[in-house]
Structure formats: structure tokens, C-alpha cells
């Protein structure tokens, strides 16, 4: 790709088929390497932009307008040429597993960002279908003869796979729609990370009026997610660790709920607690210790 520019000089003798085979292999391996690099770059950019979005959403307690900004940013990540749009264009459907390791990090971080946004916005959990609907792209394919070899494999594929529908076709270019493949495991790993961000969000200021519901809903959300994911057997690679972290987050959220109840509502709520003694304890005695 890069070094095509180099003038390597023409040596056009007829060569042994074995040697020619080696040359073809060398070319193909190099193409593969460069593609891997390219896809890694998209993934890293997606990761970083998703992280920024998460950071933005966490400012919600201070500034409600961030949700609108976050929505824009998420749209940016899916549509920008340096993020998913570029990744989708670069990735041929038949190579999805070959390059999966190169882009799985970006996808997971993006799932985390989308799911966090979803919880803040709608107070509910992101579904797999919602995610997939956001990761469907229109790719413009150049049908000129030179690139024919590259486009002809993008034929409709098996179900649950990257499928594409030809929507439009003019003489030389056509627009093709296809959905990026996200393994469910990646979906759940990304979703697991949301619990960490919720833990962070619930830790911050208690000033918002709906803080109590937010706190208890977060806690319930994380509890349900943890309880259900614990049920998977056997745990796929990576899930076991995430479950550990998730449980730690859950405990922290429960601790926050506990303190909320014990410290704040113990008197006013309709508890059947009784006090040892009277209100003397509430109106503190400011003297006697210093």
C-alpha cells in the first residue's frame, strides 16, 4: 500500500510456478498485515471516543445538558469515517473473525458507552437488538472493474451474520447496507463494564432530586445483571473476571443504598425500628469534648 511508490525496477523473466506461488503468498500476507493495522487503528479511535463519551455522561449530575451532547457524540462514532463507518468499510465480511481481535476492544468500549447513555436516558438496559440497529452501515462500493475482486464477496450471507442489502445501483457505484457482527460475548463484556460506571455515577454528588431513585434503580439494574450473568455455564473467556468486578461494584452500590437508608431515612421512613431513648440524641450537645 505505502511502498507501492517505490520503483523496484522491472524484472520480467518467466518464473517457476512455485516461486510465483511464494510471491503471491508474500503479497497476500502483507495485505493481511496492513489490514490488521488499519482495523486496529479504527478500534483504538472508537475506544478513545467512547471513553470520552462515558466521561461526558458521568458529568450528568452537574450538568443535565450532557445527554444531548453524548447522543451527538455516539452518532459521531457510528458515522465518522475514522470510527465505525471506516471500520465497516475496511472490514470484508469473510474476514470478520480473522480481524476480530483487532476491533473487539473498540466494540466493547462502544457498547459500554451506548448502554450507559441508555440507562441515563431511559433508565433501562440496552438490548442486543438496539445495539445491532446502531451498527448497521451504508457502504458505498465502487463497482469499477479493478475493485470488482474486492466487492464480489460481499454477497448476502447466512443469518445472524453480516448481511447486506443492495439498496441503490448506478452505473459505477452502489450503496450497500450491512450490519457489523458483534459477538454476544463482547456485548455482555461491554455491558458488564457499565456497572463500574454506574458505581462511579452513584458515588458522586447527591444533589439531584431524583438521586434516590437513580441510586436504587442502578443498584437493582446491576443486581439483576449480575444475578443473571452468573448463571451462564461455563463462563466464556473473560466473563469470570468481569463478574468479580461487577460483584464488587454491586457491593459498593448496595453500600450506598444502605447508607442512604440508615443515615437519612431511618427516622422518617415507616420502619418498625424503635429507638432506645428519646430525641435527646438528635439535638446534639455541642459541649463537653473540647
Amino acid at each position: 500500500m505505502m511502498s507501492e511508490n517505490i520503483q523496484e525496477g522491472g524484472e520480467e523473466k518467466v518464473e517457476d510456478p512455485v516461486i510465483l506461488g511464494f510471491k503471491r503468498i508474500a503479497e497476500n500476507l502483507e495485505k493481511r498485515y496492513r489490514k490488521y493495522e488499519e482495523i486496529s487503528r479504527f478500534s483504538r479511535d472508537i475506544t478513545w471516543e467512547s471513553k470520552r463519551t462515558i466521561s461526558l455522561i458521568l458529568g450528568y449530575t452537574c450538568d443535565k445538558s450532557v445527554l444531548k451532547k453524548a447522543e451527538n457524540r455516539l452518532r459521531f462514532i457510528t458515522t465518522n469515517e475514522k470510527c465505525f463507518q471506516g471500520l465497516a468499510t475496511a472490514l470484508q465480511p469473510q474476514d470478520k473473525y480473522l480481524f476480530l481481535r483487532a476491533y473487539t476492544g473498540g466494540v466493547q468500549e462502544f457498547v459500554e458507552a451506548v448502554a450507559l447513555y441508555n440507562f441515563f436516558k431511559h433508565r433501562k438496559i440496552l438490548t442486543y437488538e438496539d445495539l445491532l440497529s446502531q451498527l448497521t452501515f451504508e457502504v458505498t462500493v465502487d463497482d469499477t472493474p479493478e475493485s470488482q475482486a474486492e466487492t464480489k464477496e460481499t454477497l448476502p450471507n447466512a443469518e445472524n451474520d453480516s448481511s447486506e442489502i443492495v439498496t441503490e445501483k448506478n452505473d459505477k457505484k452502489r450503496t450497500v447496507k450491512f450490519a457489523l457482527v458483534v459477538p454476544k460475548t463482547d456485548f455482555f463484556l461491554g455491558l458488564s463494564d457499565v456497572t463500574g460506571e454506574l458505581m462511579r455515577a452513584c458515588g458522586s454528588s447527591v444533589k439531584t432530586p431524583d438521586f434516590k431513585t437513580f441510586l436504587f434503580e442502578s443498584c437493582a439494574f446491576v443486581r439483576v445483571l449480575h444475578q443473571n450473568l452468573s448463571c451462564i455455564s461455563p463462563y466464556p473467556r473473560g466473563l469470570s473476571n468481569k463478574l468479580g468486578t461487577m460483584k464488587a461494584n454491586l457491593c459498593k452500590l448496595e453500600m450506598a443504598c444502605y447508607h442512604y437508608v440508615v443515615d437519612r431515612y431511618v427516622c422518617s421512613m415507616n420502619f418498625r425500628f424503635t429507638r432506645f431513648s428519646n430525641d435527646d440524641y438528635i439535638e446534639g450537645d455541642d459541649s463537653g469534648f473540647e
Partner: protein
Amino acid sequence: QTIWNVIEHYQKELDGESELRDKIRTVVKEIDRDTKKINFILLSMHAKPTEENLKVIAAKARKMFETAIHTSTSALKEAVPVGDHYKYNDHWRITFQRLAFVAATTIYLETGTVCTLREAADLLGIMSAEDKESVDFKVFLDYEDYLVGLVDMSAELSRLARNCITFGDNIAKVYSIHECMNKLTLGMHNITFKNDYLRKRYDGMKYHVKAVEEVIYDLKIRGLKVTNSNSDETAATEPK
């Protein structure tokens, strides 16, 4: 007899063992799945830890033990040859630890006490390590796995104690948990662990005890107490 015969015998043994291991692996996978299902049932105790609810949960868990788990531990006992427990127990060690954990938790919810090794083994449908000498032993619940299960339970119970206040309005349970964990900690204190893993886990238990003590402290400092005033009994937290 030549080296060829030896290798033939060896290959036969390898094949037999490999087949056996496959069988064991399949059964253990089954047990693992059922254990996780029981754990799923038990985990819902945190959401609403009222006394009635805890009993309902324990009953559901016990039913799973008596159907699913008993069936699969029977299959395991059938598969493993007499005397080969130590040769193959790597396959089920971790699963048994988790199983001991869910069994101990179930029994605690039922009775409010720490179960013994035999009680735990009974619920699993297998022999206990204490009885392994008396008959041709196959699969049994080993001391360490039982103890790991208890330690895991204590982590879960300290979490439960907090949730008893937050979500269950169940102060009495907190005192019961405190008593139970004290008994456990003191009981295990003098063991000279050969097993580093267990020792580390045990060392972590003191944080769980402390967490429960903090809940009790919070109750005390705020003057909250159990209405049916069974605080007298629970004050005696020493093991009997």
C-alpha cells in the same frame, strides 16, 4: 514381552483414562450448571431479605439439590472408580467448593446455623471426608472444599446483613449473621492450613466480620433495636 507390548498397554490405559475423564467432565459440567442455578435462586435473597422470603428461597434451593444435584452426583459416583478420588478430583474440586458454598448458605437460611461437613455432604448426596475410611471411597466432600464453601458463605452473609437493613427491615437477621460468623471465624482460627489458597481466603474473612460489626454498630449508635428484643441471646456471640 517387548517394549511394543508395554506401549500397547500404555496406550490402552491412556485411552481408558481419557474416556473416563471425558465422562467425568460431562457430569461435572452438568453439576456446575445446576450449582449456578441454585446460586441464582440464592442471590435473590439480597433483593428482599425478609424472614419469610429467605425461607421460601431456601426451600426452592433445597428442592434443586434433592432433584438435580442428587442425580448428577450419583452419576459422578458411578463414573469414578473406587479409590481414584485423588487422581481425578481436580476435575470437580472448584465445582465442589461452589457446591459447598450454596449448600452451606441454603442450610444457614433454613436453620440459622453453620452446617457441619456431614450435613453439607448429605445435601450434596455424597459422602463426607470424615466417612471416607469406612467404605470403599469414591467421591466425597473434602475438608478443604467444605471450608472454602464456608468462607465464601461468610462473604455472602456479610453482604446479606447490610441488605437486611436496606431492603428487608430485618434487624434480627443481622444479629443472627453476626453470631454465625463469629462461630465460623473462631472455629477456623487455629487450623494450620497446608493450603495457601484457603489460608488467604480465611485471612479475608476478618473483613466480612468487621463489615457485620459495622452494621451492628450503626444500629446501636442510632438506637435501633429488634422489636422482639432477642438482643440478650445474640449478645453472647462466643461459640458454644
